[in-house]
């Protein structure tokens, strides 16, 4: 097993994702060992984006399964196209087909709707399968998912067992709204993504918004880094930093201390709750700007 995680980090950077060494290692291991990777971290640190970047590096498809409460096997594996089946039954009434023939007909692949998990294992080349926000799904679904992730085959009673054509590279993300089961954790490799440090965030900003002025970029990153140390209910993530930077570029601000009123108004890009906005009145903003300018 040759693990060149430095090369992987460089490849990811080439497609616009600046990964830390620990994340690059985790991805390299997940690919090398063919094990799912569980990513945890605050909202907005780029967990979902990892999958996109990885798919781009590996030049393969990204298949995404967004989890939510009440998600079940039907919505994730396959579903029969019931409406079409009913229509087919009606349409064939005149043909006097035997019951067996009819059944065989309506339970064929043409009437099968493939959902993300089945889709992911029936690809000729291994795709990247992103199972996003697994903590939002129910615990029963977690157990079901584990079965799929260990066997990589799906049994459909009417069709038989469909084995995986290739093992997808699985990335699971969790925001920690629910504790995940130990069994799932043990099945996966684990990596925790923290907010980026100043240098990394600056690199991300430059990679994503190539037109940004160097001075403004530095000020933005320092401001956000300071802001994360304040007692906020929802700390701004990288996505918020990028939004804010784009907004400031749109406002044509060259520097943060240029237009205090516009700056204060633009904070809605960073702070997403009323309490957080209130906790950052103009004086506080000015103090922070004074520190970074």
């Amino acid at each position, binding site marked *: 097993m040759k693990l060149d995680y430095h090369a992987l980090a460089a490849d990811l950077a080439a497609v616009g994702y600046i990964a830390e060494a620990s994340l690059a290692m985790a991805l390299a291991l997940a690919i090398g060992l063919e094990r799912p990777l569980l990513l945890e971290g605050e909202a907005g640190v780029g967990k979902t984006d990892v999958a996109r970047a990885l798919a781009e590096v590996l030049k393969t498809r990204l298949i995404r399964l967004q989890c939510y409460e009440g998600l079940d096997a039907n919505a994730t594996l396959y579903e029969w196209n019931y409406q079409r089946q009913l229509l087919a039954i009606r349409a064939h009434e005149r043909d006097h087909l035997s019951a067996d023939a009819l059944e065989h007909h309506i339970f064929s692949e043409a009437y099968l709707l493939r959902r993300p998990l089945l889709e992911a294992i029936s690809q000729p080349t291994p795709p990247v399968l992103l199972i996003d926000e697994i903590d939002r799904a129910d615990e029963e679904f977690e157990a079901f998912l584990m079965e799929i992730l260990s066997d990589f085959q799906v049994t459909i009673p009417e069709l038989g067992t469909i084995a995986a054509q290739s093992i997808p590279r699985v990335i699971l993300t969790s925001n920690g709204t*629910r504790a995940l089961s130990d069994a799932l954790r043990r099945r996966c490799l684990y990596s925790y993504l923290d907010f980026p440090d100043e240098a990394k965030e600056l690199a991300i900003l430059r990679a994503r918004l190539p037109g940004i002025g160097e001075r403004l970029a530095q000020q933005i990153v320092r401001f956000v880094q300071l802001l994360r140390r304040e007692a906020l209910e929802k700390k701004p993530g990288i996505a918020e930093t990028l939004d804010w930077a784009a907004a400031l570029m749109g406002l044509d601000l060259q520097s943060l201390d240029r237009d205090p009123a516009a700056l204060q108004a633009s904070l809605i890009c960073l702070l997403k709750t009323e309490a957080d906005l209130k906790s950052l009145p103009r004086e506080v903003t000015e103090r922070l700007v004074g520190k970074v300018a």
Partner: protein
Amino acid sequence: MTGPAAALRGFVAHLRLNGFTVGPGESQAALAFIAAAEPLDVATARLGLKTMLSGDRGQWERFDALFDAYWFRRGVRTAARATPRGDSGRPAIWSKLLPPDAESAPQASTGGARDDKSAAQGPLVASRRETLARSDLRRLTSAADIEEAERVAERLARAMRYRLSRRRLPAHAGDALDLRRTIRRNLAKGGEPFDLLKKRRPEHPVNLVLLLDVSGSMRVYSRYLLAFARGLIGRWVKADAFCFHTRLIHISDALRERDPLRAMDRLSLMVEGFGGGTRIAGALQSFNARYAREMLNSRSVVILMSDGYDTDPPEELSLELQRLKRRARRLVWLNPLLGWRDYAPVARAMAAAMPYIDCFAAANTLESLGALEAELARL
């Protein structure tokens, strides 16, 4: 076993002692990784093993320190983390639960002086079973009382489980059509949907979060409350417990330990500084920041056991309780002092907290703990 394999096995054992769940599969994969990785430098080994062997955020954050401690004999070797079976700083409150030989084991670093001083305190009143239920817990010390407290806790848990089973409704009153089952059922009728089958989402269980004050002022009660918590945790799947004095400590795993001696041993090591001052607001703040999102939802009941003597300003406490209430369904505050005659919640912190409390109850006798059963069962 050869050099690297033996060393790695030692490292895995070291991690297990520190609460990591590492199975043989993981250790084998780790060994394969070490054997095959090239070039193998410390950074590669550290990152690789960290990814493969840690399972959650807490372990992820502790890994580096443990790695350094094992391979380089440096870094933070705190008694609680690096030598979990050691004896340093065992609070006197556990001493009566432990056999004398464990107590006389050599004391490492911090704990000795404090232990000797406080071992002399604490009432040792022999208790009779018949008066047990009604006596104030601070007067009881024998092992039988702890068993009794656990029994009360078990009854409480059972009452709550019963409530849940009663609320489950049959699926034919479901709110959505189950097309898949409807079609299959009606195949025999030419595909005409005669029987409509429905589905409904099952009820989700209540989840409990216990926050236990183990500061000096609560000393005489905390062992019973811990035993009570142990009963709830052990028998209730969806429950978590924390201790706090000046810091907040997650103790669910230690409470789930089957062997009571080991449980107490682990707890005592975790609860360093046991019996010191109280920072209720501070503890709640760290709970809200770190755990609340993961553990609380609209089905959560938070049970806070404290006497309300807080060294943090009361405004902070009411702010944190407000945050807590936004995520949880109900807040129950158990205050042992409430059972005392003439007690009024005048402690400033207690007064600040009152608006957020849904149920304020005493917890100074086993009878009063038992009386909670009715209170919680109708949540």
